């Protein structure tokens, strides 16, 4: 029967090599990927805001043109319109670029999740269906660690889908209310609820990245 000291020593060894090391690295990866995602989200929000403003300015100037039909049209008007369109296209392509970077993050998240799944499969192979008797860290079994990864991945994946929709529609939206809703969706990320972030924190706590 292992004494408590032996158990913690074993755990320390586990943390250096093997499954525990991999899981710990995965948790760190999740955290880093989330930090990068949040940064891109903020940048994207600024750009989305610019797109909305450019659109509003354009529709205001178009409205102005409709009112001023008798007066000689200012010579710069077509030039201004062209510049406005160019700016809008520029911002849209910047936003597209942000989404491409987010897609890359998703690919990495998928790798982390696949690695987690692999560890679970290995454990089932080694220890049978019930898995390991003693948890690798504090209390979670490998299945729970895998489920946490899955929840995180699903949340970010759904959110990315939403962001793609927003990108496609943002520049074509008529009403200001809907524009506001698109911006809200981008910023507040409805498919990444507070629980998701708590799960990530719990994962970091479990794997020893955060002190208990």
């Amino acid at each position, binding site marked *: 029967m292992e004494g408590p000291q032996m158990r913690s020593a074993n755990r320390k060894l586990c943390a250096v090599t093997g499954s525990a090391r991999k899981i710990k690295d995965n948790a760190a990866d999740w955290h880093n990927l989330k930090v990068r995602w949040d940064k891109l989200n903020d940048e994207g929000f600024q750009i989305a805001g610019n797109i909305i403003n450019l659109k509003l300015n354009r529709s205001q100037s178009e409205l102005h043109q409709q009112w001023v039909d008798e007066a000689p049209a200012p010579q710069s008007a077509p030039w201004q319109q062209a510049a406005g369109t160019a700016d809008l296209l520029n911002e849209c392509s910047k936003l597209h670029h942000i989404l491409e970077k987010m897609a890359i993050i998703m690919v990495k998240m998928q790798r982390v999740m696949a690695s987690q799944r692999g560890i679970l499969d290995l454990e089932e192979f080694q220890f049978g269906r019930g898995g390991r008797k003693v948890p690798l860290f504090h209390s979670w079994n490998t299945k729970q660690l895998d489920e946490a990864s899955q929840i995180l991945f699903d949340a970010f994946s759904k959110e990315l889908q939403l962001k793609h929709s927003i990108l*496609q529609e943002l520049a074509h939206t008529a009403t200001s209310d809907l524009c*506001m809703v698109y911006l*809200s969706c981008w910023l507040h990320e409805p498919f990444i609820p507070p629980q998701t972030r708590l799960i990530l924190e719990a994962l970091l706590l479990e794997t020893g990245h955060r002190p208990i």
Partner: protein
Amino acid sequence: MSKSALLTLHQALRRSFQCLENKQKEWKSALSECTPLMGSLGNLAEQLRALSNVQISNTPLRDFPDLEEKLRFKLLHAADTVLGKLNEKMTFLQSVRDAVSNQVAGVIQLYEQNKDSLDLLTVIERSATIPSVADMLEWLQDADRHYRQQFLRRKTLMQTLRGDDLSLLESAPKRWKSLETAGADDHITDALCKVSFFMVSG
């Protein structure tokens, strides 16, 4: 006897005005921190309003059936966070109000205890550098009243934000701003100016 009572009273008054000076700064600082929070609240209310005005099923977002509910939850969650921070500020403002009140009550009580040994002439006598005891007590009481009133008004406003009434949330930043009349605490600043020589003497 009158002289020592006056001296004690003067010392208490100096302490009170020193306290008032500090509390005025703390109050202003806390209020200025509330402004961006109120701004955020108004912003979130605007977003909630826009969400209510939009029929998601008529938009390209219809592909995400539970989007409206989840977005509303996130917005309300963010609003809760902001309200939590505002409530913290209110607690701080309350402590400032209480500190001023206690200080003023203390000095008034001291006056009450000693008023038999202080005749009317002593109390209303003033010099170039030392205002009269009567004036100083009045200024302190005015300051106390000012902070009590201000706190009450702001607290009442905050109470109205409890409900799910969106229009109250939307109007909150404007109503909060309207409570801040320009020069509202000028009388306190003036009083502190008037006692500045008194503070450094004795």
